[in-house]
């Protein structure tokens, strides 16, 4: 077909520009941090959960429908298998109240992957109130506390939204679970907001 070089060049130019813009936006979207209040550096006194006095305690905020949290669950499972250390883990599963879907609310790929995380205790968190008491309002947010109540780690363990793979956060969390470091470390969290007020 007789198509001029000029037409192809023009189309190609717009093609490149449109892809760059679209792709750039997608990358930006995946890098938008979720909100997370890390001002409190100790186990909250009003938390309705018990801190383990023998080993580190981890609290994980989960929105059961958030697809991005699948990556967090898989990374966490891999990390715990490597760490070979006991950890008390609470998964605070956001539950709307009232819950019109009943048990169907918890039927999702995210929940399937969450159940594969070892040592994990699932707790239904009505309207995310329990998670908010720990300053967590984004699905995938993690808090790791030492047995003496100090906050060791706060944030997510994925490099971007819904992106599996090791990153700086997984290394830091790993070292703190194994007791190799007790220095506080925080990292951005990427996931769906748990509460509507956090849009």
């Amino acid at each position, binding site marked *: 077909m007789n*198509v001029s070089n000029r037409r192809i060049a023009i189309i190609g130019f717009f093609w490149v520009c449109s892809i760059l813009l679209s792709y750039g936006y997608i990358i930006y979207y995946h890098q938008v941090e979720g909100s997370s209040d890390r001002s409190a550096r100790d186990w909250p006194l009003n938390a309705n959960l018990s801190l383990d006095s023998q080993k580190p305690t981890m609290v994980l905020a989960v*929105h059961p*429908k958030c697809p991005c949290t699948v990556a967090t669950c898989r990374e966490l499972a891999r990390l715990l298998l490597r760490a070979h250390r006991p950890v008390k883990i609470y998964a605070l599963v*956001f539950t709307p109240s009232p819950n019109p879907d009943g048990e169907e609310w918890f039927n999702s790929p995210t929940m399937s992957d969450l159940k594969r995380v070892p040592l994990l205790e699932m707790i239904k968190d009505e309207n995310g109130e329990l998670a908010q008491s720990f300053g967590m309002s984004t699905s995938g947010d993690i808090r790791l506390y030492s047995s003496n109540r100090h906050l060791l780690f706060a944030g997510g363990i994925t*490099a971007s939204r819904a992106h599996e793979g090791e990153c700086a956060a997984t290394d830091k969390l790993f070292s703190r679970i194994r007791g190799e470091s007790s220095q506080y470390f925080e990292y951005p969290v990427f996931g769906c907001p748990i509460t509507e007020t956090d849009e």
Partner: protein
Amino acid sequence: MNVPTAESQFKLQQQEIYERTDNLFLKLFYLQWAAGILIALFVSPHTWIGASKSLHLNLYAAGILGSLISFFPVYLVHVWPGRTVTRHVVAAAQMLTSALLIHLSGGRIETHFHVFGSLAFLAFYRDWRVLGTATVVIGIDHLVRGLLYPESVFGVFSASPYRALEHAAWVIFENTFLCIAIRQSTQEMRRMAQQTVDLEQTVFDLGAATSHQQVFIASMSHELRTPLTAIIGYSELLSEAPEIQESDTMRSDVDRVNRSGKHLLELVDSILDISKIDSGRAEFNFDCCCPHRLVHDIGQVTRPMVTRNGNDFQVQVQDDLESFITDRDKLKQVLVQLLSNAGKFCENGTVTLEVVKDPSDDTLAFKVRDTGIGMSEQQMDVIFDRFVKIDDSVSRKFDGVGIGLYIAREFSRALGGSMAVESQLNLGTEFTIKVPRAGSPFLPDDEGASCPIG
């Protein structure tokens, strides 16, 4: 005719490969676009804020960005198939598709294999530069994201910064072996192109030689026929002279001259027929033919030669035979040849010419049957070969140069039919020629009329 050079032949093959691979990627882009949407629907259809949901950005990315990525290479494959810019755009788009699918699948490690699979597909072009474009696109993707969002690049800021180098190493590893394979394949293509050109040149030379040979044969046949006709004619005139008639010796000599002339003329005609058959220039004149009249004419011509060895000549023609379309002269020549052979190889026996209709395939079967010396299986294998006589003992006893049956079979095929033979040693032989009744659109309306024997 201009025989192409090896380089032009190679370029032609390359172009075919480029266009064929372009079409392969055309289908692949459609497939990947659909797969991207399915992945987004399955993995991340919605994003949530509390109890409220909305369509996930990934779904828009799969549909819109997926379309954007695929549109330009698909457009180029349609308008510029096989061009250099097309396959480089295809390479770039394929790598962008890999990046998109990795995003849509949530960065699954398994999805990264799409990159390696894509490089292997791009190697189908057998152009190493295309792999370069693909690798550059991957590199730019990692570089830009590394600059803007270093955390998003796998391995950066991790405890093992060499993971990024490991990724690059695997890509380079695959590219190295693909480039080696491309180079070897290209060399093989060049060798094949050279062989193809050499073969075409040989065929061309042979064709030219054959053409010269055919022209030579045609002209020599004419040059030979003219004096032979004179020899035959004058020998016949001479045989009628009273002086010749009175002397047995002289009459015998003149007869020998006449027979030799006719034999030579027959040989020249046969050689000319072979030449026309080989060159595809044998002329045929298809027309309506009455089988009864044909058989009658053949019988009159061949009866003397068939019965000369004490043979009984029988003609059996099915009563309800209708006219059919054929080249009467060629069919007559074939049947005369077969009857001549039958009379030659049979003594004090029976030679039968039978004509029947085969309604199953709408053909007429002409059968020439004798109760003569017959043939073995080995002899039947070679009787249709040119200039082959059955064996030395036969050739010493029976004259002929061994091309009559070859010509007869070729003519049978040219008439749209076939020739078959069955034989048993010392029991006889049967040749069957089948010709289609209506092998031509020129069959006249009075096909149903039977021709009376005149």
